């Protein structure tokens, strides 16, 4: 696993943003490396000295949120990674049965620091925003996005949101051209309100989501629709695909996502897991209907051998190598390079259910 935070020491009283550089930097956030040993490195910048404990990982170019009081730095933007995600809050108003990152009650507002970090991001980067539910802090969130994108039109954001908090009055704000660089990743689990509400454990969530979709459509917001594949959602995929073609033809992509054995799903795996390897028919019907209507559809987190041949082109090798795992017989598979494989935390008993292609 790639470490996303480090133990640090700094004399600065308040949290600050640090960009770690090899050469003398130009900005106030730049910290230059003064010395490095096997277990730690020492950096110097406008905020004084910063000592970071790490095992020789390359952290040069990375942007840290430094919290001196707690002796910790969050590595929020890794210069060499395409998958940087800012966890802007851990609060959430839904409690999805398969949540991979169960929410917490308290919120630590770090939007100003995130904004500063984003402004320092490498050119052209797509920055993920996740939670918790980012739009619980809508004004701070939109404020941060607008400030960053006004100065850095080369950047874009991908924001995961349950879309429970968009109101009529947000439409004009979201029409600002900076939002052409923002994609909202929004989950919809069923076209049946009862099923959707059950999955997200919030009565009325479906109705609220639909009204947000109306506002977002009027704002020409860019939307990636997400459906996690569980024993509850899979049987409803075909009607859901019809609902999407009818009501959400403007989405940029429909992402069908294999279940992750993490967070809440870990203890509910047997109830939640849908064996798509044995029965792909619901998924196939849904993909066909969406594809027919020109809705781009992608499958995430499923190994290619679980997908019938004619649907493999919809699959994305979505699991990055540092959290990826393969079965024993995958060694001889010719499609391994293009395959998502399994998550590192996929149940052991299922990892060898593979058929080399």
């Amino acid at each position, binding site marked *: 696993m790639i470490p996303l935070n480090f133990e640090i020491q700094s004399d600065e009283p308040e949290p600050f943003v640090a960009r770690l550089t090899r050469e003398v930097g130009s900005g106030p956030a730049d910290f230059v490396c003064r010395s490095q040993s096997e277990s730690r490195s020492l950096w110097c910048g406008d905020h004084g000295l910063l000592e970071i404990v790490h095992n020789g990982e390359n952290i040069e170019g990375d942007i840290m949120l430094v919290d001196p009081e707690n002796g910790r730095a969050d590595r929020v933007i890794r210069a060499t990674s395409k998958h940087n995600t800012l966890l802007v809050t851990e609060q959430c108003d839904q409690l999805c049965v398969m949540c991979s990152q169960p929410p917490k009650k308290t919120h630590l507002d770090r939007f100003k620091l995130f904004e500063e970090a984003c402004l320092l991001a490498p050119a052209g980067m797509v920055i993920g925003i996740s939670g918790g539910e980012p739009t619980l802090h809508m004004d701070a969130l939109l404020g941060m996005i607008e400030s960053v994108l006004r100065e850095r039109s080369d950047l874009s954001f991908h924001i995961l949101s349950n879309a429970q908090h968009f109101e009529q009055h947000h439409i004009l704000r979201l*029409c600002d*051209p900076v939002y*052409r660089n923002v994609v909202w990743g929004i989950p919809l689990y069923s076209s049946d309100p009862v099923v959707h509400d059950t999955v997200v454990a919030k009565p009325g969530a479906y109705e609220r989501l*639909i009204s947000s*979709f*109306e506002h977002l*459509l*009027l*704002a*020409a917001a*860019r939307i990636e629709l997400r459906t996690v594949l569980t024993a509850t959602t899979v049987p409803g995929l075909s009607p859901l695909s019809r609902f999407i073609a*009818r*009501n*959400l*033809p*403007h989405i940029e992509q429909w992402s069908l996502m294999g279940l992750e054995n993490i967070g809440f799903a870990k203890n509910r795996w047997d109830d939640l897991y849908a064996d798509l390897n044995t029965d792909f028919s619901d998924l*196939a*019907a849904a*993909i*066909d*209907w969406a*594809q*027919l*209507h*020109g809705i781009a559809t992608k499958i995430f987190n499923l190994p290619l051998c679980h997908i*019938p041949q*004619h*649907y493999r082109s*919809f699959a994305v090798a979505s699991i990055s190598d540092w959290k990826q795992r393969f079965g024993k017989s995958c060694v001889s598979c010719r499609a391994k390079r293009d395959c998502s494989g399994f998550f590192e935390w996929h149940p052991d008993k299922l990892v060898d259910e593979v058929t080399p292609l």
Partner: protein
Amino acid sequence: MHGLAALTFLGISTLLRAGGDDVAIGRSISVATSDLSCDAIQSAHPAGIRFREVGDHTLVTNEAGRFAMLESSGSQSQSDPSFKLPDAIKTALIPENRLSKLAQTFEAAKRRTRAGPLDYLILVPTLRCNLACSYCQVSRAAIGASGHDWDDGTLAAVLSLVSSLSSASIKIEFQGGEPSLRPDLIEAVINAVPPATTASFVICTNLQIINDGILAIFDRPDVLISTSLDGPEELHSKQRQGDAVRAREFHKNLNWLIDRYGPGKISALPTINPQALPDPDALIDAYSSLGLHSLYLRPINFQGFARKRHASARQTDGSWSAYHERFIDRLIERNFLDRTKVLEETYFSLILRRIFQPGADRHVDLRNPNPVGRDYIVIDYDGMAYPTDEARMLTRSGVIDLSIGNVAEGWDSDARAALEAASTNDGDPTCEKCAYKPYCGRDIIDDISRYGTIDTPKEETEFCRRHLSLFDLAFKMIHSKDPAVRYSLGRWLGLGSDLPAMESAA
């Protein structure tokens, strides 16, 4: 994408501002409703609901392109006060809530073409050609003629145009004449593309001669080759110059290139004489034996030299449509028998995509409105700019000057404005009544070419007849229960399996 979404937003908000929430699709909803039943209002209000008899069924469509097929023919007149909108239409076409209303508004807007920046160029570096085919559409010049290639000034203007392109991706097609006679000019254009632009190039060539200069260009991964293959060798030879030696030379070169690159790099088009239609199977075999599974059937165009020698091509009565249909039927039968490959006719596939997929409008001959000289342009050997290749040919053959400017001075001209104003099927009395309007397009150049005017009633034009017939065929097939039909349609539309059943009702 940026521009599209922004404009879409404008389109929707404009509609909404016109009369509040409920106006998005049914704009007559604000009319006094006292003495009208709900069904009457819904059927009467112009959600662009239009009917068409297709076989013994009635097709109903709306402006968003949603459709339903009713099993009974002879639909009740909408003016009949007892008219009741069938449930199938309600389910398929009438929005059930605000979100689906907005969705339909979005789709109706998306079906309308919005030209982006110039990203498709057709360039004619030379008009000279080493062949003189009987149907030549481009009024070619003799191989040794002078003054039929770009001169230095024209080349400089073309390079300046190419180097200033602002689109993220562009396609540049080299036509002729025979462009492979001037690999140096092709090379110069390729090198002028801005480094940040993703470009693909198509060389439209007769493949008569392949020398080192053109081969070096073919070898580039961003270059595609397009050629004409009229069918089996004898037919190909007959339609060209009746010269069997040259036809053999072409086939040898085509085979050699397919061996060298695989079939993916090469596309071929047959040019078909409607007076001497080839046997569909012979044509299909000529293609599939080379590993080419896609064909684009096109009848001889009433242009260029073809205008003089094939005067009968002006009006093709119903035989062309019947042939096209027979051809599609054969593809369907063959696909069902041999599942190892999918044969397709690309224009019919486009028709299918236009029905199901709002925004499938990059085919410049079938879109509405059809912007002129915006996202694509043709630059001739003398630097003149034309809205389409057909417009260039029509001008070359002396029928009417359809140039809209030139490469040095641009083409933001009165001529462009005049053509563009007419380049739509909006407001046309025939089109406005037509159930296929949301899917169809407008090709004013074709009308000018055939009738010398754009005012011919639509239903009397070849364009209209040909497309009515294609859309009829498409909708019959979309609702067919024949598994062979559903098999091919599913593949042509890019699905993993057969076309699913549509909602339809008695």
